[in-house]
C-alpha cells in the first residue's frame, strides 16, 4: 500500500478530480500555475474533502454533504441581470476572459491574464491543510477579475460583480485593491440558472489601503439544488473601514468563509449577515478575524431565519494578538427557528492574548414573540400575515441601518420575495 491514496474517494471527490483531469489542458495558466493547480488537486486526492473530524468543518461535513458535482461545460456563456442598484457598473464573471464595462479611477483585468503570466501562482496555495475551498478553487479556477482602485477615488455608483452559475461549474477569483482614502461600494451577486444544478466557488482577496472605506454587499441567490463555496480574505490598513453585508437567500449547500485581519490602528470591520434558510438546505458562515495590532474595532451581527429542515451554522473566531491593546470586538448571533426540525449551530470563539481589550459575544434562539403577535392581530392583521411581518422584521433591523433608501428597498424586496415564495 502506498501512502498517497489511502481513502476511497466519494462520488463528488472523483468528479472534482475528473473535472481537473478532463480540462487541465484548457485551463489557463503558465507552468507555475499548473504546478500550483496540480498540488491542490493532489492534496484533494490524498486527503479527500473534509469530514466532521476536521475541526473547521465539524458542523459542515463537506464530504457527506457534497454528494454530486455537475459536469463542467466550458462553452457555457455568462448571462446578465439588471443590477441591484440603478446606475451600477456591472462586471460579469465569464470563462472567456473578457472584461466588459469600466469604472472611472479603476483598472480591471481578467484573472486569466494573471494565470497566464504566472503572477497568480502564489495565490493558488490553500490557506492550510483544512482549506478545502482553497484546494477546489485553486485547482480549477477558470475565471475572475483583478480590480485596482486608485487612491482617493469615490465612484458615485456601486460596482456590481455578477457570478452566474451556468454550465455546471464555475470557479473564480476576485483580487481587489482599494487605494488610500478610496470610498467604494461593491455588490457581489451569485445567481443561479433556474432548474440547473451548479457548483461554484469564489475566492476573493481584498486589500484596503489606509483610510479606505469600502462597503461590500454579497447577495447569494443560488438555486436550491446548487452548491456554493465562498472564501473572502481581507486585510485592512490604517483607519480603513470595511463593512461586509451578506444575504444568503438560496443554495442547497453553502459555505461562506471570511478570513480577515486588521493590519494597522484605527481599522474597523463591520459584518452583518442575514441567513434565510428553508427546505433541506445547509448554510455555513465561518469567520476568522484577527485583530493583529492595537486599537482596531469590529462588530458582527448575524440574524438567521430557519424554516423546515434547514440547517445553519455560524462559526465566529476572533483572535486578539498579544500586543493588540484597546481592541473592541462584539459579535452577536440571533436565530429565529420556525419549525421543530429547523437547526442552527453557533460557535463563537474568542482567543484573547492582550489584557486591555473589550470583547463580547452572544448567541440567542427565539421564537415569534407572542405579545407582538397578539398586538398585530388585535389590529385586524390575520395570524399568518402577522407572523410574516414579524419574521421579516427580525432581519429588517439589519437592513434598515444601511445607507441609501434605494439599497434598503432593494434588499427588503429580496427578503420579502423570498418569504413570499415560501408561502406560495
Amino acid at each position, binding site marked *: 500500500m502506498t501512502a498517497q491514496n489511502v481513502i476511497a474517494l466519494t462520488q463528488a471527490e472523483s468528479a472534482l478530480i475528473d473535472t481537473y483531469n478532463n480540462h487541465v489542458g484548457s485551463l489557463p495558466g503558465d507552468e507555475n500555475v499548473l504546478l500550483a493547480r496540480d498540488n491542490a488537486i493532489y492534496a484533494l486526492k490524498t486527503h479527500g474533502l473534509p469530514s466532521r473530524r476536521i475541526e473547521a468543518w465539524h458542523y459542515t461535513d463537506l464530504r457527506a454533504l457534497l454528494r454530486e458535482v455537475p459536469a463542467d461545460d466550458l462553452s457555457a456563456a455568462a448571462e446578465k441581470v439588471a443590477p441591484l442598484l440603478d446606475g451600477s457598473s456591472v462586471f460579469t464573471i465569464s470563462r472567456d476572459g473578457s472584461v466588459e464595462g469600466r469604472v472611472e479611477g479603476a483598472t480591471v483585468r481578467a484573472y486569466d491574464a494573471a494565470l497566464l503570466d504566472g503572477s497568480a501562482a502564489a495565490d493558488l496555495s490553500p490557506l492550510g491543510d483544512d482549506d478545502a475551498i482553497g484546494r477546489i478553487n485553486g485547482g480549477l479556477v477558470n475565471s475572475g477579475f483583478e480590480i485596482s482602485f486608485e487612491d482617493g477615488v469615490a465612484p458615485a455608483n456601486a460596482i456590481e460583480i455578477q457570478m452566474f452559475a451556468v454550465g455546471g461549474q464555475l470557479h473564480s477569483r476576485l483580487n481587489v485593491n482599494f487605494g488610500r482614502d478610496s470610498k467604494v461600494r461593491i455588490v457581489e451577486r451569485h445567481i443561479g440558472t433556474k432548474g440547473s444544478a451548479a457548483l461554484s466557488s469564489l475566492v476573493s482577496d481584498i486589500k484596503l489601503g489606509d483610510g479606505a472605506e469600502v462597503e461590500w454587499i454579497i447577495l447569494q441567490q443560488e438555486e436550491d439544488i446548487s452548491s456554493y463555496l465562498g472564501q473572502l480574505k481581507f486585510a485592512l490598513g490604517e483607519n480603513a473601514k470595511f463593512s461586509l453585508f451578506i444575504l444568503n437567500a438560496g443554495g442547497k449547500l453553502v459555505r461562506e468563509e471570511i478570513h480577515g485581519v486588521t493590519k494597522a490602528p484605527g481599522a474597523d470591520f463591520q459584518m452583518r449577515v442575514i441567513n434565510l434558510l428553508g427546505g433541506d438546505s445547509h448554510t455555513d458562515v465561518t469567520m476568522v478575524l484577527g485583530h493583529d495590532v492595537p486599537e482596531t474595532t469590529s462588530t458582527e451581527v448575524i440574524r438567521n431565519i430557519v424554516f423546515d429542515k434547514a440547517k445553519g451554522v455560524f462559526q465566529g473566531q476572533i483572535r486578539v494578538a498579544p500586543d493588540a491593546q484597546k481592541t473592541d470586538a462584539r459579535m452577536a448571533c440571533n436565530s429565529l427557528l420556525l419549525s421543530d426540525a429547523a437547526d442552527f449551530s453557533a460557535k463563537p470563539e474568542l482567543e484573547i492574548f492582550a489584557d486591555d481589550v473589550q470583547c463580547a459575544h452572544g448567541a440567542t434562539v427565539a421564537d415569534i414573540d407572542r405579545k407582538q403577535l397578539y398586538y398585530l392581530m388585535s389590529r385586524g*392583521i390575520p395570524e399568518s400575515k*402577522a407572523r410574516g411581518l414579524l419574521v421579516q422584521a427580525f432581519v429588517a433591523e439589519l437592513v434598515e441601518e444601511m445607507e441609501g433608501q434605494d439599497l434598503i428597498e432593494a434588499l427588503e424586496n429580496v427578503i420579502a420575495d423570498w418569504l413570499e415564495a415560501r408561502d406560495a
Partner: protein
Amino acid sequence: MLEIRNLHARIAEDGTEIIRGLNLTVKAGEVAAIMGPNGSGKSTLSYVLSGREDYEVTEGDILYNGESILELDPAERAAKGLFLAFQYPVEIPGVATMQFLKVAMNEQRKARGEAELSTPDFMRKVKEAASALKVEPEMLRRPLNVGFSGGEKKRVEILQMALLEPKLCVLDETDSGLDIDALRVVSDGVNALRSPDRAMIVITHYQRLLDHIQPDSVHVLYKGQVIKSGDAELAKELEANGYEDVIKSAA
C-alpha cells in the same frame, strides 16, 4: 351593542380566576367608564374582550351585536369593529409604523369584503389623522412604538383608533403616564370619535380622565364583578370618598 353575561375568565397558564361573574351592557353611542381599585380585573376584562389567548373564558358569554365572539381570534374581532387601546403598547422593531398602519387598514377592509385603499388615499387619511393628534410624520417612519415616549405611544394608539374606525373602543388606562397637555390631546382625539353608532369603554383609575371624556355610565369593578353602576356622578363620588364605601355596601 355589547352584552357581557355572567362572564368568568381565568389566566390560562395557572388557572387563577380573575373575572368572576361579570355582567355589563353597553349601548351604541354610549361611553361607559369602568373604574376600580388595583387588581379588580380591569385590564383582564380588556384582554378578554380583545381575545388574548393567555386568558380562558370558563363560563358566560360576550355578545357583540347579539352574536357571541368567544370563538373569534383577536384579528377576527378587530375586523368586526372591536378595538383595544393598550395600556402598554407593544414595541415592534423592524416594522415601520406606516407599513403597519397600511397592512392593518387593508387587512380589515379585506376581511369585510371592501376594496383596499389606494396609496394616495391611505397617505391622505394618515396625514389628516396624524396632524389632529400632533403625531409628527417623522414618527410614522420609525419602527412601531420603538423609542416612543409614553405620551407618543398613547397618541399613536388613538391614531390607530381613528384610522381603523372601530365600532366598539376599549381604552385601557389611556391616561396613565400622560401629562396634562398630552391628556388633553388624547381626550380630544377620543371625543372626536364619539358618535351615535360607536360605543366606548373607558377603563381608568382616576376621575381625571373623565373630566375630559364625559361618561354616560360608570361601573365599579371589584374582584372581577361589577358591584355598582351609576352615572357620571358616581365617578365624582369615588374620587371624593375612595372605593371603600362602595365595596362595603356591596358586601
